[in-house]
């Protein structure tokens, strides 16, 4: 495995908000490492501080304590001028797009160039560069439109073009698909993935839906109770979620984990099998199984995903089923559902 270079490191981050006399702790002792080229998903339920975390990264919010290390420097110590330069390397897109409504699409994308200090481009160079970016996001023909004439998906594409204008190393996405319908959301996510591959752009995505993370991220952190409860490679966390919150996010309420307390067996398919496993299991072991939950995908003829089946009543049947599955290359784990 090739060695990964850490691009952003968050150490012992604390953030709280003071409301009159009460102090509302939002992030406590948070640690996170993002590597170059990652698409890092941060997921959690509403009000867990996901947005606060991402806004601390580009210092839209000032952390109370801790370190944010970018290129061997703690950005929290930066002067105002250094912060502005740092923000040009760590761009951001938002849930509500936040475009300038009184400016055309082209002028919106040109804004970062106008904000640049020193060796400024002339008007024509700015225009050309902005048009190139609009072409990149597929909106060159909309350059002279005003944002009010665009759909939500188009607005987010303009916002992405604007965020790319300063040639950032990291792109922060704060619920960037939450205001969009699923098809449009997916097209935005696909665009982000393209940018990640083509430009080597590191992306940090905040979301409250697992489907967003699943589609594009290679790593994920689960935020709960003001701290990260699980983090790592998407495949690891996804196949083997340990905490209740991770389970509820991954199974997305299809199983009510609180109500029942039955034993089940989780089957994880990681592309090793192209046989009709379950049918074979029933035939060979002569037991009937009940599928409690299934979320599998077939890609290039191989099955990926997971399934939870209810355990047979007799212990010997349980053993038979387990042996059969292990022999067929399916990883299993007993779970409480």
């Amino acid at each position, binding site marked *: 495995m090739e060695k990964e270079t850490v691009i952003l490191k968050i150490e012992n981050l604390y953030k709280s908000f003071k409301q009159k006399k009460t102090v509302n702790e939002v992030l406590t002792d948070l640690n996170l490492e993002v590597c170059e080229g990652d698409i890092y998903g941060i997921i959690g339920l509403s009000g867990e501080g996901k947005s606060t975390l991402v806004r601390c990264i*580009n210092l*839209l919010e000032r952390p109370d304590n801790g370190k944010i290390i970018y290129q061997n420097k703690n950005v929290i110590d930066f002067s105002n001028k250094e912060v502005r330069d740092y923000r*040009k390397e760590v761009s*951001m897109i938002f849930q509500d797009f936040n*475009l*300038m409504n*009184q400016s055309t699409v082209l002028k919106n994308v040109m804004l970062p160039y106008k904000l640049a200090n020193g060796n400024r481009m002339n008007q024509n160079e700015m225009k050309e560069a902005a048009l190139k970016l609009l072409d990149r996001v597929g909106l060159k023909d909309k350059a002279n439109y*005003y944002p009010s*004439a*665009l759909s939500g998906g188009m607005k987010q594409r303009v916002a992405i073009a604007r965020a790319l204008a300063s040639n950032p190393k990291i792109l922060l996405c704060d619920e960037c698909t939450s205001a969009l319908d699923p098809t449009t959301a997916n097209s935005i996510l696909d665009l982000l993935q393209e940018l990640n591959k083509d430009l080597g752009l590191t992306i940090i995505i905040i979301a409250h839906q697992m489907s967003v993370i699943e589609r594009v991220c290679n790593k994920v952190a689960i935020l709960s109770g003001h701290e990260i409860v699980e983090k790592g490679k998407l495949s690891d966390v996804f196949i083997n979620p340990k905490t209740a919150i991770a389970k509820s996010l991954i199974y997305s309420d299809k199983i009510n984990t609180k109500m029942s307390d039955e034993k089940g067996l989780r089957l994880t398919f990681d592309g090793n099998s192209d046989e009709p496993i379950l049918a074979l299991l029933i035939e060979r072991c002569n037991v009937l199984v009940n599928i409690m939950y299934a979320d599998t995908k077939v890609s290039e003829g191989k099955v990926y995903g997971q399934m939870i089946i209810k355990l047979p009543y007799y212990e010997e049947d349980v053993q038979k089923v387990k042996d059969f599955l292990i022999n067929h290359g399916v990883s299993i784990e007993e779970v409480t559902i």
Partner: protein
Amino acid sequence: MNWQYLFTALYETVLMTIVSTTVAYLIGLPLGVLLHETSKKGLRPNKIVNAILGTIVNIFRSVPCLLLIIVLIPVTNLVFGKGSWSGNWYSMVVPLVFASFGFVARMVEQSLSEVPYGVIEAARSLGASNFQIIFRVLLVEAGPSLISGFAVCVVSIIGYTSFAGYIAGGGLIYQAFTWGYYGTEKVGMWVCILFVVIVVQIIQEGGLWISKKVDKRRNLG
């Protein structure tokens, strides 16, 4: 009715209004920006500066224009030379500016506060300085609202010009008052009133029309 008087009065009113509005905006616009940016939701909250500016604005807004005329006679003397201004339209410029710059500042502050916070935050995330946010984002996005606010300010300044008579500054409203009060020119009075109504209509409706015209928020959507 003496048409000569009428047109002189119209000319005086228009000049008073244009010059006073210009100066009031030269003071009120930056003041309004400062009021907004030092407020809680502004780019650089500063309770003390905000309170001081707010107090200055409130003082000049609460002293009636009529009293300002008298109180500010020394200032008018200083600007135009002692005694030389009496009987000229510009005698009202100083009191008009002082009576209206606070109002202008509050209108500007209000317009700026209508700009969605997210847009400002986006500019900040792109590395914009506060100065750049004000000039490249806030004033641009608040454009239509600033224009309609401008119309309201001009109309209120026209209202203040009615006090010009007290220091022989002339103007339409004073002309109407004189003709009506002495009962010599009832028709003239009504014509003056009609002129004032027309001027106010043009400014108010024209301002709103331009404001809507330049507003790109819903023209095509």
